């Protein structure tokens, strides 16, 4: 077993045990548009688009929320949808100009569901401090990545 398998890529769980090194990336999705760095140019129609992936097969469904997870809409998947392959999803969105939080969740054909952030934090724990960027203590994190949209149109990153 290599150093990196033995030590670096073995995530520690809240009970002090660690997952032995594994390759499989579980079902996950993230929004690539809009995302940090973009400023929305006023209220109106936008296409929310992103990438979903599962190490256990094909993506079967992606749901997208614009209110931090309170309500969801099903996204369209771009064909071809292949096993263990990046799958583009998209959904139209009318921004009313108010603050919004965008996030996505994916399902795969094996019945796996991308966890919410609360679920994965409960299962894996979370750091009590800001780790150095090279520490990689959140390997295999597959919870949602959430983007905030401010009334100004600025897109930022939030935990939701």
């Amino acid at each position, binding site marked *: *077993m*290599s*150093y990196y398998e*033995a*030590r670096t890529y*073995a*995530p*520690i*769980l*809240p009970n*002090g*045990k*660690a*997952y*032995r090194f*594994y390759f*499989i990336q579980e079902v996950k999705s993230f929004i690539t548009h809009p995302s940090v760095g973009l400023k929305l140019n006023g209220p109106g129609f936008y296409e929310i688009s992103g990438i979903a992936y599962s190490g256990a097969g094909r993506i079967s469904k992606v749901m997208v929320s614009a209110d931090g997870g309170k309500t969801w809409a099903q996204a369209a998947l771009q064909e071809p949808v292949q096993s263990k392959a990046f799958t583009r999803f998209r959904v139209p969105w009318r921004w009313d100009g108010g603050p919004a939080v965008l996030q996505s969740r994916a399902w795969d054909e094996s019945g796996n569901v991308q966890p919410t952030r609360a679920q994965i934090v409960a299962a*894996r*724990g*979370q*750091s*009590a*401090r800001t*780790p150095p960027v090279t520490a990689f*203590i*959140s390997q295999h994190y597959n919870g949602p990545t959430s983007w905030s949209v401010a009334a100004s149109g600025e897109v930022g990153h939030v935990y939701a």
Partner: protein
Amino acid sequence: MSTLRSFAALALALSTGAVCAQTPNLGRPIDPADIAPWDISIQPDGTGLPPGGGTPAQGARIYAQKCAMCHGENAKGGNNAPLVGGARIANMDSVRTIANFWPYSTTIFDFIRRAMPWQQPRTLTDNEVYALTAYILAENKLIRDNESMNPETLPKVKMPNRDGFIIRFPDKI
């Protein structure tokens, strides 16, 4: 016209390709003897360990000369990680050390041989790597001070956190 020409070229390539070459002709088959120096992986059970051996005392001398400038005197840490000690692992913020985390002793040999000294990797002999591995294990009180590490003894050293791991997908390994 150009489409027709492409078709002709393709047909020619296909017909001659079957006769002349089975591959895109990008190189030559590599000789197993050329792979051997790079194929240095060591399994937890010791498979892949080269012949040789070394003691903690031999390792201490090499350590002082080639390792202490980064890892500190007596392996207690310096500009780079300590190689002895380590508090019990509690959560993802815990500092992982050889003694509190690494599941297999053979990983120490593997990593020293591959990567150390940092500025001169692959310059240590196998005996030197065994000696340094023995030194680190002895400093951590995981072997006795006079115990030699070699292909037979090293895999038998049970690391403290050997049972601290969960296999995430037992049916997929």
